[in-house]
């Protein structure tokens, strides 16, 4: 068995831990760091409940070893709200009823986060394509799509406001 010391940032905080080489990133995040917002929904890399961002890219953390994240910047659902304010995506899921049981929601939000960072103004088709690695058993997806559209509109609004303020100051 080999053990490795890894150092990484998770939601901006640096952690150094010893891990077994076979420890999956999702188990590391949930069990070693106690960040249980990232879920496990399958054994076959199919469901996306475990989605988080590694260096800005949404990946399935059940299919990456924790040692591979050495030196990386990881972002989980716990890091999405800033200073107690919900992220536009979280607000969108709230406003548009983008969840029922909520099991898929952290993964959905992390996938949507990468999508909106790459493409702030996605079409409905692009949203559906962007979350096609995340399964939801409850909503039928329509409300999730609406939640992401809400977040995209909200983030754009925020940007114009900020831009407007800058221009007037």
């Amino acid at each position, binding site marked *: *068995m*080999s053990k*490795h010391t890894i150092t990484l940032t998770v939601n901006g905080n640096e952690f150094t831990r010893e891990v*077994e*080489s*076979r420890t*999956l990133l999702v*188990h590391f995040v949930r069990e070693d760091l106690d960040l249980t917002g990232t879920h496990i929904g399958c*054994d*076959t*890399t*199919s469901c*996306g409940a475990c*989605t988080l961002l590694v260096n800005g*890219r*949404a*990946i*399935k953390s*059940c*299919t*990456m*070893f924790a*040692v*591979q994240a*050495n030196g990386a910047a990881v972002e989980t659902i716990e890091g999405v709200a800033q200073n107690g304010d919900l992220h536009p995506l979280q607000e969108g899921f709230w406003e548009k009823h983008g969840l029922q049981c909520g099991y898929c929601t952290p993964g959905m939000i992390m*996938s949507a986060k990468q999508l909106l960072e790459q493409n702030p103004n996605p079409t409905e088709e692009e949203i559906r*394509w*962007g979350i*096609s*690695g*995340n399964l939801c058993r409850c909503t039928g997806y329509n409300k999730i799509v609406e939640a992401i559209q809400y977040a995209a509109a909200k983030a754009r609004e925020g940007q114009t406001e900020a831009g407007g303020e800058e221009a007037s100051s």
Partner: protein
Amino acid sequence: MIPGQFDYHAPTSLDEAVALLGQHGGAKILAGGQSLIPAMRFRLALPEVLIDINGLADLDYIREAVGHLAIGGLTRESALEESAAVQSRYPLLADTARVIADPLVRNLATVGGNLAHADPANDHPAAMLAYNAQVVAHGPQGTRTIAIDDFFTGLFENSLADDEILTEIRIPEPGAGAGGAYLKVERKVGDYAISAVAVQLAMSGDSVSAARIGLTNVSPVPMRASGAEQAVVGQRLTEEVLEAAGRAAAAECDPSADLRGSVDYKRDLTRVLTKRALRKAAERAAGGTS
């Protein structure tokens, strides 16, 4: 499920990686991990040592070279989707990249791993067979190129030596009158193909001057539909010729019955997809986008 125990090495240069492979007999290369880790979680794979090549950042590139497109072995599937060169000049590859797994898997999965895994269910083997690609391998003796026709040797088996790393894939630049297409039918978005057909052809006037056709998930080893190729070369793509090509592909493939369908269904789907992919490739050839 949790994989078995293994030793882990993360080399930072190609030579170091090759040396590590030489030192550890039972070692496996870890690239995107999107085939290997699922297999390890089911303990279908129990490697004693993993050599993680994700630190070899200089194997991650897409370059237009003289006469071919060079794709580094560690290039992620998502980079193909984002590449202007691929999207504009290699439509068969662009079609393929879009339908491999889902966006989360594509953020990690590599083109080199997709080929090296030699899984007939994977989509790149058929596409690269149709393109007549070359695979570049690096080992202790240096670098060699392998024609794609010689690359797949069995189910999950390729012609790389245990201490060789797939470093590059070269796709010949499509010439004038060339066109390509990949058509796949899957049970749901992100799934492996029930059947899929890759076509790369060249038209000379109204008739087909050259064609290569690769098939996905309808044989134990990734295969070309040579009978279907012969049915179209030198011909105009009339309905009769397309039907003959489709029937040839249906006859020469060798699917097995599973949850994705019966043998007859998969053969018939292969017939239909062969016809449609040929038609689409020819339309693209006529439209000027290779």
